[in-house]
């Protein structure tokens, strides 16, 4: 957004859970700055605390040390300035697609609701599906409805918790393009947690690499290639290799010399 909303500033953030009466540190001294309108991905193996970090930003985890500032204000709970898309679409099965999109618009009247619902179903390409129930949708469609629901509230920041993790490979690539289109159209900040390194490089301005026990930020890699990005380009491959190296998964070129 041109008004510089949707910024995030995390300073010296640590978080522990109590497990069997002793504290277990999940996040250790996290520092991260997310500028207005940028796309940031957080990658890391399971248990590195990336989802916990996202839940803190969302406002679902309130007890932490350090600072988490959204537009300069300490995050103390969920708010309409942040939207969320979970890995499971989390659409309510007893509501139609239209009613699900309107879920966060409780305070508006019917006319205003309908306007926003139509606008956002149009945005995700699901106009005409208002009165369909979630169980009648495919995984990709359901996730698009979940995105529409999150965007209908006009958040300044969209949080995505492995949003495409449950989709098949082709739908996933298609949805990555969709996410990029929505991000460019809405001009809001997006923070995505993902397992998929290619997905992170394809979409992000910044890839945050975390490692586990306790979760720390190991490296932040800027991706400045022009969009749309070519997954087969040498630049893309190079960034991918660099990230894999961070996870100690880089290729040792033994076979390259075997010929």
């Amino acid at each position, binding site marked *: 957004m041109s008004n510089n909303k949707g910024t995030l500033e995390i300073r010296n953030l640590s978080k522990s859970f109590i497990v069997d009466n002793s504290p277990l540190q999940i996040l250790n001294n996290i520092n991260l700055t997310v500028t207005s309108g940028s796309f940031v991905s957080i990658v890391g193996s399971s248990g590195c605390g990336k989802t916990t970090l996202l839940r803190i930003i969302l406002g679902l985890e309130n007890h932490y040390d350090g600072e988490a500032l959204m537009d300069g204000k300490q995050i103390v709970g*969920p708010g309409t300035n942040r939207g969320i898309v*979970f890995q499971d679409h989390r659409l309510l099965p007893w509501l139609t697609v239209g009613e699900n999109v309107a879920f966060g618009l*409780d305070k508006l009247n019917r006319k205003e609701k309908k306007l926003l619902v139509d606008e956002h179903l149009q945005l995700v390409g699901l106009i005409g599906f208002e009165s369909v*129930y979630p*169980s*009648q949708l495919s995984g990709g469609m359901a996730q698009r409805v979940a995105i529409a629901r999150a965007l209908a509230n006009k958040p300044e920041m969209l949080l995505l918790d492995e949003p495409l993790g449950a989709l098949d490979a082709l739908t996933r690539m298609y949805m990555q393009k969709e996410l990029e289109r929505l991000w460019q159209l809405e001009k809001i900040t997006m923070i995505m947690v993902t397992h998929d390194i290619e997905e992170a490089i394809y979409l992000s301005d910044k890839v945050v690499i975390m490692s586990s026990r306790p979760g720390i930020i190991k490296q932040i890699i800027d991706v400045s290639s022009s969009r749309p990005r070519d997954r087969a380009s040498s630049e893309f491959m190079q960034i991918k290799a660099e990230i894999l190296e961070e996870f100690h998964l880089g290729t040792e070129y033994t076979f390259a010399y075997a010929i």
Partner: protein
Amino acid sequence: MKKLLISKKTKGILGAIAFPIVFIAFWQLFILAGFPSARFLPSPYKVLQKFVILFSDPTYSHNIAVSLQRVMIGFFIGTLAGFIFGLLMGLSKTAEKIFAPFFHAVRQVPMIGWIPLIIMLFGMNELPRVLIISVAAFYPITLNTFSGVRNVPREYLELASVYGYKGLTLIRKIIIPAALPSIATGISLGLAMSWSVLMVAEIFIQTAFGIGTQIQRGRDRFDIALVIAGIITVGVLGYSMTLLVQKIVKAVERGQVISADK
């Protein structure tokens, strides 16, 4: 390939009446065989004759109407109370701790165990009859509402908290809809319980009208055909009500999860 010209529905009906026909045939054979123990058992034809008489007798339809009304009132009270109580215990762990042990202990006492006390306290009135029926419905509805509320997926509650839903709105928009299939199961069990204690209520707390009364009257007059006709009436009416409730429950569930193959 030849196609059978019998529709699925016809097949279903044929299947459903096949066994009763066999049953009645055996009943008739049993009587024709002349076992000494069967000497009081009326033939199926005699029971049919009794039904013919009953259908033209306004007391019979009045008995049915009174019984249905009695069940409906008791069931309605029990449903309402069970829903509120189950919701309360489901929402509040404190309420559960206070009420659950008492509730589970009380519900171990079969309805028939309460009859002497209830008669001594209230006399042979309509109130204790309706009370018994409502208590019978109350138990399953409380239990199922409670478990439905407790088992609302954490994910839905989280979603609600992201969108700032609290208190009554949370209950109305998330908890009750999510618990609805379980509540519906409780309601259909509750109706079955109400119907089955109706006989207890009518036979043990004597009353002028009701199907139970008819059965009791048949016993007093040693009119076994009348007793059997009463039993068949209870079975058929109860089964029809169960089918009706199952339809309603299915409709509720369809609202919840529309099957993908539809």
